[in-house]
Each structure stands twice: as C-alpha cells, then as structure tokens.
C-alpha cells in the first residue's frame, strides 16, 4: 500500500522516477465485478490481521483522503440549518464568484522547493501523453466512486512498487553475503558500498535498478557537494581514491542499457514474480515468509504467491 514500505525517506524519491518509467505501460484495465469481489474479500481479510506500521500509515492516508474528498451532505444538521436560512447552493455573500469548496489541504511531506512537484508531475504527464492519447477525456468526468476506485488502484500500485524495491534489496543483500562468503576481492565495508564499486553492467539485472538509482543519487549529491565546495574553496582529498571508479560508473549512467530498459518495462507484478523466483531458486529464500530455508524443498512455505501466504 505504502510508497514507504521500504521505510525511509529516500525511497520516496525513487518511486516517482519509477512511476515515470512505468507510465509507458498502458493503464490497467477497469476492474470487473469479479475482480472487485476478490479485492473486497482480500481487503476484508487484511482488516482482520494486525496491520504493520507501513500499512497503518497507508490506512491513515487513505482515510484522510477520503475524508477530504467527502463533502458535508444535506443530512448534516449544519447543512439543514443553512438551508433553512435561505442557502440554495453556490457561494455565500453578495459578491459573484464566492468560493464553493473549502481550500485544498496539502500536507507537504518533503522539502522539495516550489515547482518541484509540478516538475515531476509534468514529466509524468508528458510520458503519459506520449504513451497514448485519449486519457484526457476520461479524466474530465470522474465520479466519486470512480475516484475512490482509482485511488485504491493507485495505492495497490504503490504497494506493489514498494514490494519490488524491498525484494530487490533482499536479493542484493543475499547476493552480497554470498560474495563476501566467497572471499570476493572487492573490498566491502557495507553491503551498499560493495555494490557501488562494481561496474553497473555486471550487476544482476534483477536488482540493477536499485544500484543504478543509488548511483544516480550519489552523483546528484556529489554535484551539490561540489557546488558547495566551490563556495568555501576547501580541499578534501578523502574521496579521491573512489573518484576514478565513481566517474566511470557515472559515465555508464549516461549509456543506454537495453537489458535494464526491458526489465523496467515489466509491470510490478511481473518484476516481483521474477525476483521472488530468483530468491527461491538461488537462495531458498521466501520473500513472503521472510525466511531462508535450509533446503531446496522449503518445507513449511505455503506457496509461491502472496495470496497463498494469507
């Protein structure tokens, strides 16, 4: 559900860039009644379980959004009182064009500057337009119900995305462990750094997006740092040893990576399936049990999918 399933702020940045990539795939088809029943059932089942922190957050967010989108209706006492006072809809007062809706309430979740959000939105929109026209008309008349369904769909999507990132991280972690165990000659301080120092192209495709994204962020950070440095003209040489590797890898960022593009084009569900499969086969790890089984039979694991894990 939550974009923040992986848990930290940094992830918020990425999923947006991912969304961008993802909009190139056609929007999921409208829910059929069967799917709806299935979803409701699933949701009901989920309700009976104690929720995780992330799920709670997502629920809070959903309730907030629903609350904000639901106007006070005519059954409300205040609405009735106002009607008795002669209110007939529209705005109040004597001037034309008085407002009819409360001011939008937006909680700023990050420190993005003015224009940052719309910059992101603009990119997404442009991508969507490229992907295919016709979406515009539909968007114009979205009913409340449709809105809710859409929100729910978006939440699902975000949750799936969060799961993909989480799974990638697990895979990477296991991969690094393995290497360390083998006595890999790459000096690793933390798993994260170890990954950074290998060439990007050599990274397992199933978690290459993760490494790539980390690298991009590192580059941005460095650019900002350089800018800062130019102010105070100080000379830190600590990072020099990393420089050459880093630069090469940054160059690599600019190159096309068809394999990665292909992978990115998959839907979240497909990606997740591939990653979990890899986890099972290579590491006997079940992403849903969150457990690494001692043998290939993986006895005790109810199955391959999340649903089977109840």
């Amino acid at each position, binding site marked *: 559900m939550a974009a923040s399933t992986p848990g930290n702020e940094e992830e918020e940045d990425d999923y947006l860039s991912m969304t961008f990539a993802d909009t190139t795939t056609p929007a999921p088809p409208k829910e059929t009644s069967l799917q709806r029943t299935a979803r409701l059932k699933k949701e009901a089942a989920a309700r009976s379980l104690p929720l995780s922190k992330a799920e709670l957050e997502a629920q809070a967010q959903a309730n907030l959004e629903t609350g904000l989108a639901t106007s006070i209706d005519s059954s409300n006492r205040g609405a009735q009182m106002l009607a*008795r006072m002669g209110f007939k809809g529209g705005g109040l007062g004597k*001037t034309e064009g008085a407002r009819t809706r*409360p001011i939008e309430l937006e909680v700023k979740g990050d*420190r993005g*500057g003015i224009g940052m959000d719309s910059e992101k939105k603009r990119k997404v929109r442009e991508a969507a337009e490229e992907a295919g026209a016709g979406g515009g008309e539909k968007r114009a008349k979205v009913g409340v119900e449709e809105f809710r369904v859409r929100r729910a769909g978006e939440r699902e999507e975000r949750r799936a995305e969060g799961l993909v990132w989480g799974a990638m991280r697990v895979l990477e972690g296991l991969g690094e462990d393995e290497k360390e165990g083998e006595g890999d000659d790459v000096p690793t301080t933390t798993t994260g750094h170890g990954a950074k120092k290998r060439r990007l192209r050599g990274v397992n495709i199933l978690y290459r997006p993760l490494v790539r994204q980390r690298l991009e962020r590192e580059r941005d950070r460095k650019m900002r740092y350089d800018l800062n440095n130019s*102010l*105070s003209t100080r000379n830190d040489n600590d990072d020099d040893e990393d420089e050459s590797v880093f630069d090469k890898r940054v160059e690599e960022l600019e190159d096309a990576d068809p394999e990665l593009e292909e992978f990115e084009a998959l839907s979240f569900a497909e990606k997740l399936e591939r990653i979990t499969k890899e986890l099972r086969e290579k590491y006997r790890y079940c992403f849903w049990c969150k457990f690494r089984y001692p043998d290939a039979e993986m006895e005790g694991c109810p199955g391959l999918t999340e649903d089977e894990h109840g």
Partner: protein
Amino acid sequence: MSLSYCQIDPVEALEGRATRITTAMAEGESKSRFKRQKVSDATDNDRANPYLSHMFEGNDAAGGHANGYGNGQTHDSAKGGMLASFKRHASTAKMAKVAEDGPNNPFKQGHQLSERYFGILKKRRDLPVHAQRQEFLDMFQKSQILVFVGETGSGKTTQIPQFVLYDDLPQLNGKMVACTQPRRVAAMSVAQRVAQELDVTLGEEVGYSIRFEDMTSQKTILKYMTDGMLLREAMNDHNLSRYSVIILDEAHERTLATDILMGLLKEVVVRRPDLKLIIMSATLDAQKFQKYFLNAPLLAVPGRTHPVEIFYTQEPERDYVEAALRTVLQIHATEPEGDILLFLTGEEEIEDAVRKINLEADEMIREADAGPLKVYPLYGTLPPMQQQRIFDPAPPPFKKGGRPGRKCIVSTNIAETSLTIDGIVYVVDPGFSKQKVYNPRIRVESLLVSPISKASAQQRAGRAGRTRPGKCFRLYTEDAFKKELIEQSYPEILRSNLASTVLELKKLGVDDLVHFDLMDPPAPETLMRALEELNYLACLDDEGELTRLGQLASEFPLDPALAVMLISSPEFYCSNEILSLTALLSVPQLFVRPASARKRADEMKELFAHQDGDHLTMLNVYHAFKSPAAQENQKQWCHDHFLSFRALQQADNVRLQLKRIMEREELELVSTPFEDRKYYENIRRALVAGFFMQVAKKDNKIYVTVKDNQNVLLHPSTVLGQESEWVIYNEFVLTSKNYIRTVTAVKPEWLLEIGENYYDLDTFSKGEVKTALMRVRDKVRKKQLIAGGR
C-alpha cells in the same frame, strides 16, 4: 508584562528606536514636570474665532513655537485649547502644524509641550506620510470612506490617527477615534509611542484596549485596539456610536476580525452618515478594498524603498532548506557588505538552520578568510530578550580593512510585514511559510507548510531595499513564481473554524448569515460545520437563533466549546477548576523543553503528571504554581520546573478576567473537596460538556476520531498512557503524521449522557465506534432497568 513586550515589539520599534525612546522618556518627564508650573491661567474666550487660524499661520511663518505667543496664548488654555479655532472637518495641514508647534499641548489643557515632544516632532515630520498631510485631509473631509495605502515605514500607523485627531476633534462631541491592529503587541506599543508623540500619559488621552486588558479612561480620544476588541464592542453597540472615526489598520493582513469588521462597517456607515472610515493597507492590492467599499477614494503614500534586484533559480530545488543554506553562504562568500534575511517556516527548521550556518561559516572563516557572520533566529515564541538581539549591529571585520562582517537573520514570516530590520540588503526566499488551514470536512485546524503568495513574495523582496538597493534570491524558477504561486494569500476567514465567528455575528445582530457581505465569503461547508457545532453545543437552536446558552457563551472571549464547558462547570461542582483550566488552555505552551535539557524537562513534567491526562496535568501545574512554596519566588520556581513563567502569569491574568465575567453573569464558583474521590472525575466530566465533539477511540493500536474517522496518534508530549480507550482532545494537528494534542481519558458512558444529542447513534456510520457505543448504551440501559426494578 506589557513593558517587556513593548521593548521587543517589532512594529514601531522598527528603526531600532526603542532604546532611544526609553531614555528620551525619562528626560522628557522631568522637563515637563518642571514646565508645568509656568502654565498660564485659563480664560475662555474666542473659542470658535474663525479668524484665529490666520494668526496661527502667521505665527508659523514667524518661526515656530518659540515665538508663537501673543494672542495665541490666551487661546491655548481655552476649552479646546489651541484647537479652538479649528472647525471639524475643515482644518488644514498648516493649521495643524501650528497647533503642533505648541508651545501648549493642544490635547491636554494647560500643559506645555516637553522638549522630548519637540525632539520627536522633528523626526515625525520626516516621515513620508507627512508630505501628504494636506492631500490626506482633503480626501478625508470629502469622503466618508477612504482607502489609504502606505508601505511599512511610511509612518501611517502612528501619524494618520493623529492627523485625524486634529481634523475630527472627537473631544468636542465626546467621541473617540479608534485604530485597530491585528496584534495585541502592536496595539500596546503603538499606543505607547503615540502617547509620547502627543506628549500625553498612556491610558489618558491615548489608550489601548486588548483582550483581557483595557488601558483607557474617560479622557481617551484616540484608542488603539485589536480588531477583535472592536468587534466585541460592536456586539453591545451595533452602531459603534462611541466612535466618530474608525481606522482599520493593516487591513491587507485580512485577519478574521478585520474581515468581519469590514462587513459590519459597510452596513454601519449607511446607518451612520457621521461615521468616517479609513481602511489602511500596506500593499498595493488596495483596489480590492476600493471596489468592496463602493469605489471609495484611494490615497497612496510611497514608502522609502530602494530598487531590489530579483534572482530566480534555473531549476526547481530538491530541498529548499539545503538550497537556502547554500545561498546564504554563497552571499557571505561573494557579495559586498550588507545583512541577510532568510525566510524559513518554523522554530525547529530555523534553529537547525542557524546551527548549520554557524558551523559552515566557522569553516569558511578558518579556511577561506571570510568575514565574521552572526546568525540570529527569529520566531514568535522566541523569548523577548532573544528577539531583541536581531537589532544588534553586524559584527565588525576581524581586522581593519578585512572582509566585512555581517549578520544573518533566519526568520518566520513575522519579518515579512510586521517587523522591519534595518541593514538588510539580501533576502533569501525559499517560498514557503507556515499557514493556518482549516478543513470543515475532517475538522482539522492546523499550521501547515505551504507555498506563499505572489504578494508575500513581493513583500519579502521589499525587505531587501530598506536601506539601500538590495538583492532577493528566490529559490524557485521564474516560471514557478508565475504559475505556482497564488496572487494573494488566502484571508484568515477562509482558513479558520468559524464557530466563534458565527456566534459573534449572531450577537452582532447579523441575521442573514447567508448573504452577509464579506469581502471573501468562506466555503458554505465551513459555515455548515460551524452551525452544526454551535447547535450541538446548544448555543444555536435549529433555526439558527441564539439560545440563552449561546447568549451567555458569547459574553466570554473564548471558543464556544470552552465557553460552554465553563458555563456548565458549576453543574459538575468544579467551576473553580474548569476556570483555571480554561485560562490555561487560552495561553501559550506551559511546558518548556529546551533542546539542551530535554530529559531533565521531561522528569520535571513527570512530577505534575496525572495518569488520566494532560488537562489534569496542567491543572496540577497551576495548583503547584499557586502554592506558597512556588509563590515565594515564582520565576525561579518556574525555571527550576521547566515551566513558562510568562504563560502562567498570563493564565493568572486571563483567569481573573474570566472570573469577573462569571461573577457578572452570576455563575457559581464551586469545587468538589479535594479529598472526595470524585474530584478529578467531575473535572473530566465537565471537560466532556465542552469537548464531546473532539473525541477519539482506540482501535487496535491506533486512535480514530469519532464521526470523522481519521487515524490519529497521541502527541508525543502527552502524559497519557496508550491504554485509554476513549479520549477527548484539545487539538487535532496535521503534520506528516496526524496527532491529537492535550488529551484526557474519558468514559464512553459520559459521552452518551453529556453529549446526548451528538451521540445519537442513528447518525453514526457503521463501524467500530458505533458498535462500541451501542454496547455501552445497552449496558447502561440494562443497569438502569435493574436499578428501576428494585
């Protein structure tokens, strides 16, 4: 309290005059006492001699006050003094100038003007508004309503009311001139300043009136007051008949009270052709006021400003705080002399930024030979002494001829309009501020970080051009400025819960709420919610008419929920305690938690903690504060216990004022004996009487607000453990998480009993809350049946 406030007060301490004024005051007082003995005896002739104005003009030409004796003197002491020749609404700037030149005080019979007065007078005449005094008078005399635009520093707040005094002569009709201010502190400090300028005692001819403090007398002819106070006065006097001129100052701030006053006065001026109205604004969007007031004439006085060059970023910033810090350091490293003003949003962000800038600046000094940089925070809750520090001069260079030193002030938007710091040449504007928002759908009123408006951005930029040409660095693109920022900030009336406003409007005699002519009418849903709340509080009946309880509640300068709680508290045998609690809830935060001593502060708070919640804890604090041990040395005691002395003092004052109203309304002051085991329970029940609409229920791990179904967390500051199933809360705060703040545990039976109407379970939508309440209801019924059966 007022004194310490006045010194820090931004508003007219503007040009760092505050200290000068204080010394001048001491001097001036002794002088005037000395001179008073020379006052000539009073003769009462020529009171309305129309020829006299010429003589005054002549005197003026002859060279100021020293020579201005002769005939003039006999008139000085006449009734109306030097103003005897003035005809109402027919005076000129010249005449006023002569009268101002003395030597006798035109507004204080038989008193000569002091030297201090003349010292100030000279400076007053340098103010930009002075140049247009005649123009102002011409328009004022011709028109009933006037819109006046003058930027901060033009002198409008102090001078225009005085211009009006000389022309309107309110003393002749036993009327007053009122000048409203959005802030209490401004009302107090401006009144003090103007009393000095007119050489009268504060509280006599010039006074002020703010909530819980009335500093006026029979003699008062010019009254500074908060807009809220004028509104309260209008409740008992719908025509505001005590005033001949009403000046609404800082109208551009569009406070709730100013907006209501404008709507009201628009009607009053029709009923009272003798009433004059001046709307004063600091920004150039005055056309909106003009249009609203049926094309009233407009007079604009330019401020003293220099050009400001504006810079935008090329790309949107990923992190506006980081970008701001970078910009500040860059300015320090590369720009010529001049102080920096950085706008951020809140205390925490500001303190953090100050720390970081200090660290970086130290490094720049060590390694890049930068000049010294002093960084000061500035926000509303900062103690006065520290606020004052922003007026310290910038540090000198380390060595003669070295890189210049500068100061950097990191401020909330209080530095945007309400305060002026000289020497600012660089403004860094990330484009955000904390703004109050209210949403009636989920009933949340909260401060949120939001983008500022174009008008605010202009105002911020203008701060750079006070002393010389400056630069403003906007941390967003020009495109974003044009497309993303709204033109004007939303007025408060669109961002507030209107429950108390509706009560006020009813009391003000506004019957048709739907068509009341407001400049910016709020969303209908906001009004619906307010009506609903007042109806459940039994302040309005189903037709929207004031009930007796509503009448009574409107006597209290409190939120309706608080007022109702206070009024019903005698029924719960705890009105003394609820009175204290109401006062405590009306003042700023009691508990002090400095970053350097969090643990110690929390331990101290633990001393007062009551297991059932924060309200009772606050009450414990107050009782401890009133104990003999604490009273011995209040300040020290508060300091030792990490409590805000100012807040407690204020609470004491508020309590006293509320107590007077209670006595006047014959509400009983009673207490349950402390030994009684129902002592605290009664208080909690009384809380429910006011706050039954602000209840949350625990559901698994989380709390959910009743009816609105919002997930909330207990604010980390609460003393309440997680085990209470039902809680009432004082505030619903929205941040990245939703918090309820100041909470106390209650029993669901009380909700059903005391908030009976609201807890009509048929009106609840299906869910956990409803089910739980139904269980409770059945249990209660069963009990009653058993009891009845016996």
